[in-house]
């Protein structure tokens, strides 16, 4: 998000000194994510939506569900796609124009976490095989940035999908036709939860905030599904992890992920 300055160096020194005492800048335990709040149905005109605050990071996901053409050779499956964008007021360094590689990575990691978990049951989203299917588009925008967009975006998309309703379409005279009043919940099979961890020195911290994010040597995002299995992973950053650290991060993601999943379930139930 920014190139290193003298202030960045001082911040990193301070963060490391605190970590050596087992502390974080905002008082959290090393494996403790920031407070998560989820507002369901923030955009009533969308088919589903959720505004998520993770500490001071705030993101919004709106889901649009509409007829689309299937991909070639995928005529028996609906379409799921997830995008992410940093709104220009989310941080002074954000630029308008084509997305940078870090934003492309963000969108693809969030998309893959949900896709690889098979959360959205695309086999149920076919209007007419090979001709017309249902497309589910989860578009995420970042409103305020304070680190760890991976998890904030992932939670927003997951919460929005969990609470989405899909209209029903059929083919009438070779024309896609809306069946009025036949809405149903979007078919989902599991609740994927991503946990992003930063490595600073030899410490692994969960859900790095903005200052921690700028000070990280490396990061890892691990997504688990409702069975407690690992379904997606992405390492990033300019340093490496030991094999032990990788295993440790896996364990953290299962354990902390389970807690986040409960919050997502609550939000889903609260919306019904």
């Amino acid at each position: 998000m920014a190139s290193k300055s003298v202030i960045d160096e001082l911040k990193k020194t301070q963060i490391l000194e605190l970590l050596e005492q087992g502390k974080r800048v905002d008082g959290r335990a090393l494996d403790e994510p920031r407070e998560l709040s989820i507002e369901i149905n923030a955009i009533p005109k969308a088919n589903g939506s959720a505004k998520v605050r993770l500490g001071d990071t705030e993101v919004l996901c709106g889901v649009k569900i509409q007829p689309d053409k299937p991909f070639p050779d995928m005529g028996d499956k609906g379409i799921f796609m997830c995008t992410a964008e940093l709104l220009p007021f989310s941080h002074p360094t954000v630029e308008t124009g084509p997305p940078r590689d870090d934003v492309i990575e963000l969108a693809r990691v969030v998309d893959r976490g949900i896709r690889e978990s098979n959360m959205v049951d695309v086999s149920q989203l076919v209007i007419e095989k090979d001709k017309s299917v249902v497309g589910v588009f989860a578009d995420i925008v970042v409103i305020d940035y304070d680190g760890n967009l991976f998890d904030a975006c992932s939670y927003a998309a997951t919460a929005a999908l969990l609470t989405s309703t899909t209209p029903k379409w059929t083919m009438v005279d070779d024309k896609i036709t809306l069946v009025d009043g036949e809405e149903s919940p979007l078919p989902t099979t599991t609740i994927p939860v991503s946990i992003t961890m930063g490595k600073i020195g030899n410490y692994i911290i969960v859900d790095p905030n903005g200052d921690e994010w700028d000070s990280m040597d490396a990061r890892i995002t691990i997504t688990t599904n409702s069975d407690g299995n690992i379904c997606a992973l992405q390492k990033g950053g300019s340093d490496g992890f030991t094999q032990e650290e990788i295993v440790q991060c896996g364990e953290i993601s299962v354990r902390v992920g389970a807690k986040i999943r409960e919050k997502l379930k609550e939000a889903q139930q609260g919306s019904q």
Partner: protein
Amino acid sequence: MGGREATMVLLDENGIRCDGRKIDETRKITIKAGVLKNADGSAYIEFGDNKILVGIFGPRDVHPKHMSDTDTGILRVRYHMEPFSVTERKRPAPSRREIEISKVIKEALEPAVMLEKFPRTAVDVFIEVLQADGGTRCAALAAASVALADAGIPMRDMVAACASGKVADTIVLDVNNEEDQAGQADMPVGYMPNLEKITLLQLDGVLTPEEYKKCVDVGVNGCKLVYEIQKKALTDKYFGNGKD
């Protein structure tokens, strides 16, 4: 996919509109100032079902330098709609419509901002439409004025904004989405009440010269109503009752 309601009554015999409003009544409007953490100033508006966020950065340096002006500051405005803000999902790339509205809003704000006070720098106004419901440009302009004030940018006045229009052969205030689709004319108005100047004006649809005069008048009066809500948003934040 669907189809327009053919038999919608836009204005009934009692002068009540399709959403229950009277002809000189605006939709429900709420504005909140200072809603973003990283921006230098911000505002959130709900104008009927429109939901719009505006964030301000600046005055700040201009890159590349040759885009700056040694005599005056410059205002840069981006009006942008989220993919999920409209009925049919919008593609992320800025459309020609968004580029034009960005320019129209910029020129509506410029008379209000004391640009000469911060030469060589720029003030960026980022407008994001989260949910659209007809009249987004007026809602966006009203919110942008509040956000500029929230950012402490020196201003001559705030620009208020509201559309008037023609529906069922009648001039009405604040055309909503259904009225815009099925109605006869839509006239967005931006107005500075203290300086008594119209800084945004557009028209789509047919009006007789008499209706035109009336329509401008109704729009200006609507702006005066919106102006009070804008002032309240700033008062609430800076001298507020602490409620959220």
